[in-house]
Structures are given as structure tokens and as C-alpha cells.
């Protein structure tokens, strides 16, 4: 695989006191594998639970306990590799990564070092301006999560809960292909979308299912890579962007003052908007990796991989391309709709047998806008795809005007009901009876003789008349008919 070299983009450079700087970012993302049981034990992976209840003697590293791998976790890693268009290694090896920490009872983490289960792949990342770029994936490997330490329960003691100990994680390592905070956010967003489509990680960042270690360095455009710092455990997409921003600024400051960047691990403090070095760095990490003697190499066949490939769902890139090709949507709209599988499904249900652009418009602008306003997720939407489709049908067949459609949307949102019945019951039907419209227009004209005179000289006043007529009709007059008749009556044809 060739590594594409991205020429520096002047728009993404950061201005320093002594000239422009380019920020270079790579990410190691830890994604919790969606599975019922842990990677090497039969204990539950469920979030929460009483402390140390989702723990087997394997996870607690009791003497003599042996790991036995969960086949579904292996399948999930392979599915993810396929979703990242990556090389799948039919033979991989588990190693021990040795270090001491109170929430790591084994004294080592079972991980994969030299022979990971998934090799090189790629992620196509979409930016808000509609452009896309490719981020190289270096590898994906399976490993155990550690337990959880709570430091705020007691003045002098830390509390350790091993519920998470041994839960399967996928560490997904990107190439240093990102060039701004926005790109870093967009990459993590896209990776999360792919994982959620695949069903291999729920992407729940509040519960820690997805965490990122962000590697940041800066350089003069065109120079070789600078020294990087690793910002550990960033747990939201927004914080990833902020961490890149402040860390790049910090490094530029150090370099412009004549200093040098030390390679180190840092923490991002969102409250203070700064990164600071982690304390435990006196001793360089020496994990003394070696193959875990409790585990044979992990091997599987092409046929098994092909079966997994055949059962993969349609992924966001393919779905987006299909929405553009089949429904005629703009890449931007298609991108918004495919960001979540539920949104894409909802849109397709609304668009079925209808004008797809109108459907996209209603889903994105009205529905998503309203959901956003109320802080609701799509699965909490009071308006079903069938109701929204019914509303669009009423506009399409001329039963209601576009303006009334928005009122109807509001009624469906707050009160529910069948769109057609609501329209009948409340008399929202559009008036297309030209006689009735003419009568309203005549009344408006009669009440405003001065405006009529002005309109002859200034035809833009038409708009004011349309507004008055629509108001007088309670928004129910057919706007096209109002326009036509008004033009004629005002002598503007």
C-alpha cells in the first residue's frame, strides 16, 4: 500500500509569530468490542453492575486460571477489519504487555504486538465542506481492557473495580494522516459511524466504549515530521478537536521560543483547556512483550472470513454513494443521512415511492431540526416515517400548501394523528377554488387602493399583496393561484 503524501494545505496551517506551522495528527482508538462475554472469560461485559460482580477468577488473575478466547470477539475484529478495507491476518499471535498498575491484576495485559489480527486499511473521511480524504489504518489488534480505579472515594485510598477487566478492546491505529483539529474530529466521527454500522462497537463515548489517544506534532510546511506528544484517553469527539488545538498551540509556542519538544505522554484537561504531562514518566516504558504461553496462535480460514464478509451490512460509504446515485441527493445531504444507520433507514422509509429530494428536505431540515431543538434522538421522534411520508403526500397532491405543511408538522409533533385525518378535521385543506380566492383578493384590493396604485409603478409590491391574501385565507390559499389572479387583477401581466 502506498502512503499518500498530502501536500500542506494553506487553509489548514496555523499562524505562529514566526510563520506558518502544519499540525500532524495520528490516533490510536480503543473501541470496546460488542459482545456478551469478555475476551478470555465467560464474565459479563455489561456496563455498570455492582463492583467486581462481572468478574471471573480469570479476570481477577487468580493463580492457575487460564484464558480461553471468545470466538465472537475474534469475528467482531475481523468484521471491523473488513469494514476498514484492511488486510486480514489469518494467523495472529497474543503477547503479554507487562506493567504494574492496581487495576491490572495479571501484571500484564494480553494484547497483540508483532502479529496483529488486522493489518493495513483505510477510512474515507468526509469534511463539512463536502470534500473527502483518506486516512491510512496501520493496524487493528485485539487486547484486554483493564479494571477501573476510583480516586475520589477516600482521602488516602484508591478503589478498584475489575468489572471492565478483560473486556475485549480493538485498538485501531491510524497513520499520521490528519492535518487539523477538524480532520481529527471528522476521522473519529467517521470511524465511530463505521463501527456502529458494523455493530462491532456501540461507540458510546460517555460509557468509555470509544476512547482515543491522540498523537500531535507540528512542523514547518514541507519539513519532516516533528517530535510528537501523545495525549491519552480523550473521551469525546469535541475534546479530541480541542486537545489537538491546544497541544499544537503549546508546541508552536515552545518551538518559537527556541525550545524543543520532548516526546512524552500528556493529559488533556477540558476544564482548563490545556494539556499537561503525566506524572509517571520518570521511567521510560518497557513493556517486555513476549508471546503469551497460555495461548496458541489465533488461526482461521479464508472461507470463514468470506462468510463474515458476505454477512456485512451496507456500509456508510456505499450507502452514501447509493443515495447520491439513486435518489439524486447532494453528497452533503447523503452524508448527513448516512451518519447514523437509523437516520438512513428512516429516510428510506419516508422516500419510498415519493420524491426523494422532498423527503430528504423534510427529514434533514424539519425533523432533525426539531429533534435537535428538543434534544431528542431519532428513535424518540414523535413523528414516524409513515406520518412524515403522509404529510409529504398531502403537499405533493396539492391538498395542503407548503406553509400549512409546516403547521401540520407541528400538530403531528405535539398531538400525533394521521396526517390526512388531521387536515380534514381541522379544515387545513388548501383552497384551490379560484372563485373563493378571487373574492379574498378583491377584498384586499378594495381595502388598499393606495397600494394598488404604488404596485403599478413598483411591481415588487406584489409580494406584499400575496402576503395579505395568504394571511386573510389562513394560509390555505393555493399560492400559485393567488399569484396568477393577483397579477391579472393588478394589471402586472
Amino acid at each position: 500500500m502506498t502512503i499518500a503524501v498530502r501536500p500542506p494545505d494553506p487553509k489548514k496551517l496555523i499562524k505562529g509569530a514566526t510563520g506558518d506551522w502544519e499540525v500532524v495528527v495520528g490516533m490510536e482508538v480503543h473501541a470496546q468490542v460488542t459482545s456478551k462475554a469478555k475476551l478470555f472469560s465467560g464474565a459479563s461485559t455489561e456496563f455498570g453492575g455492582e463492583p467486581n460482580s462481572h468478574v471471573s477468577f480469570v479476570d481477577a488473575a487468580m493463580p492457575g486460571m487460564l484464558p480461553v478466547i471468545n470466538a465472537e470477539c475474534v469475528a467482531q475484529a475481523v468484521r471491523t477489519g473488513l469494514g476498514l478495507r484492511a488486510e486480514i491476518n489469518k494467523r495472529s499471535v497474543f503477547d503479554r504487555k507487562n506493567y504494574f498498575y492496581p487495576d491490572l491484576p495479571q501484571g500484564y495485559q494480553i494484547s497483540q504486538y508483532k502479529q496483529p489480527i488486522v493489518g493495513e486499511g483505510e477510512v474515507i473521511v468526509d469534511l463539512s465542506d463536502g470534500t473527502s480524504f483518506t486516512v491510512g489504518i496501520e493496524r487493528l489488534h485485539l487486547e484486554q481492557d483493564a479494571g477501573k480505579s476510583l480516586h475520589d472515594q477516600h482521602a488516602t485510598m484508591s478503589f478498584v473495580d475489575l468489572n471492565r477487566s478483560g473486556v475485549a478492546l480493538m485498538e485501531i491505529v491510524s497513520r499520521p494522516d490528519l492535518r487539523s483539529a477538524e480532520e481529527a474530529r471528522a476521522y473519529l466521527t467517521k470511524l465511530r459511524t463505521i463501527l456502529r454500522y458494523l455493530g462491532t462497537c456501540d461507540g458510546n463515548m460517555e460509557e468509555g466504549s470509544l476512547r482515543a489517544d491522540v498523537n500531535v506534532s507540528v512542523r514547518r510546511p514541507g519539513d519532516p515530521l516533528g517530535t510528537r506528544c501523545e495525549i491519552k484517553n480523550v473521551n469525546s469527539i469535541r475534546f479530541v478537536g480541542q486537545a489537538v488545538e491546544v497541544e499544537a498551540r503549546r508546541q508552536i509556542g515552545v518551538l518559537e521560543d527556541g525550545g524543543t519538544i520532548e516526546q512524552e505522554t500528556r493529559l488533556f484537561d477540558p476544564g482548563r483547556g490545556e494539556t499537561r504531562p503525566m506524572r509517571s514518566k520518570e521511567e521510560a516504558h518497557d513493556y517486555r512483550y513476549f508471546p503469551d504461553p497460555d495461548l496458541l496462535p489465533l488461526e482461521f480460514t479464508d472461507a470463514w472470513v468470506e462468510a463474515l464478509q458476505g454477512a456485512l451490512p451496507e456500509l456508510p460509504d456505499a450507502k452514501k454513494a447509493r443515495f447520491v446515485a439513486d435518489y439524486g441527493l447532494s453528497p452533503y445531504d447523503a452524508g448527513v443521512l448516512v451518519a447514523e444507520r437509523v437516520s438512513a433507514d428512516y429516510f428510506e422509509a419516508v422516500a419510498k415511492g415519493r420524491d426523494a429530494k422532498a423527503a430528504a428536505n423534510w427529514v434533514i431540515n424539519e425533523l432533525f431540526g426539531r429533534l435537535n431543538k428538543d434534544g431528542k434522538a431519532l428513535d424518540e421522534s414523535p413523528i414516524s416515517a409513515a406520518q412524515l411520508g403522509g404529510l409529504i403526500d398531502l403537499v405533493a397532491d396539492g391538498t395542503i400548501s407548503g406553509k400549512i405543511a409546516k403547521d401540520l408538522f407541528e400538530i403531528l409533533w405535539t398531538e400525533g394523528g394521521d396526517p390526512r385525518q388531521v387536515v380534514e378535521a381541522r379544515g387545513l385543506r388548501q383552497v384551490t377554488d379560484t372563485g373563493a380566492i378571487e373574492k379574498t383578493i378583491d377584498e384586499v384590493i378594495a381595502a388598499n387602493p393606495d397600494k394598488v396604485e404604488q404596485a403599478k409603478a413598483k411591481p415588487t409590491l406584489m409580494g406584499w399583496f400575496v402576503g395579505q391574501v395568504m394571511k386573510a385565507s389562513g394560509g390555505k390559499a393555493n399560492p400559485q393561484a393567488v399569484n396568477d389572479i393577483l397579477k391579472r387583477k393588478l394589471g402586472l401581466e
Partner: protein
Amino acid sequence: MSVDTATVKRVARLARIALAEGEAEAMRGELNAILGFVEQLAEVDVTGVEPMTSVQPMAMKQREDAVTDGFYAADVIANAPVRDDGFFTVPKVVE
């Protein structure tokens, strides 16, 4: 391959094994004797031989994805020197 005293101290520190003054020197001798003994293996020509991971040609055992274990927190923490409210407790470690 042989190790010097500094390496012995470093390995001991990584393994959290306390070595009293003077012990490192004695340990260096012991470790070098062991390394020298193991080094005899290097005399065997293994060119073209795949590393062996098992005496029997067997595949790794796998388990089904089912919750079959756990839910005995009291047993898990039973041997902990200090515990509180279902948690292991240790002298405070904060980053």
C-alpha cells in the same frame, strides 16, 4: 548474552522485586550462569524451521459468546488485604 549490575537492578525494578544492596551483584552472577546455560541452544541450526508453538498440531480452543461466569464479587475480593464496599482498595494512585 550477559547482564551487568545496572540491568539486574532495572529488571528487578520493572518486576517490583526488592533487591538489597549487594544482592544485585550476586544475582548478576546467577543470571549470567542461567543465560550461559540457555545460550547452548543457540548452537542448534534452526535455519528454515518454523517456531513451534505446540507439541501437538492443534488449534486454539475457543469459547462461545455467552455469560457463564462471574457474579461472586465477595469471592473475588475475599483475599484482598484491604477492601471497602465491594471494591479492592489500595494506597492512592493518581495521575
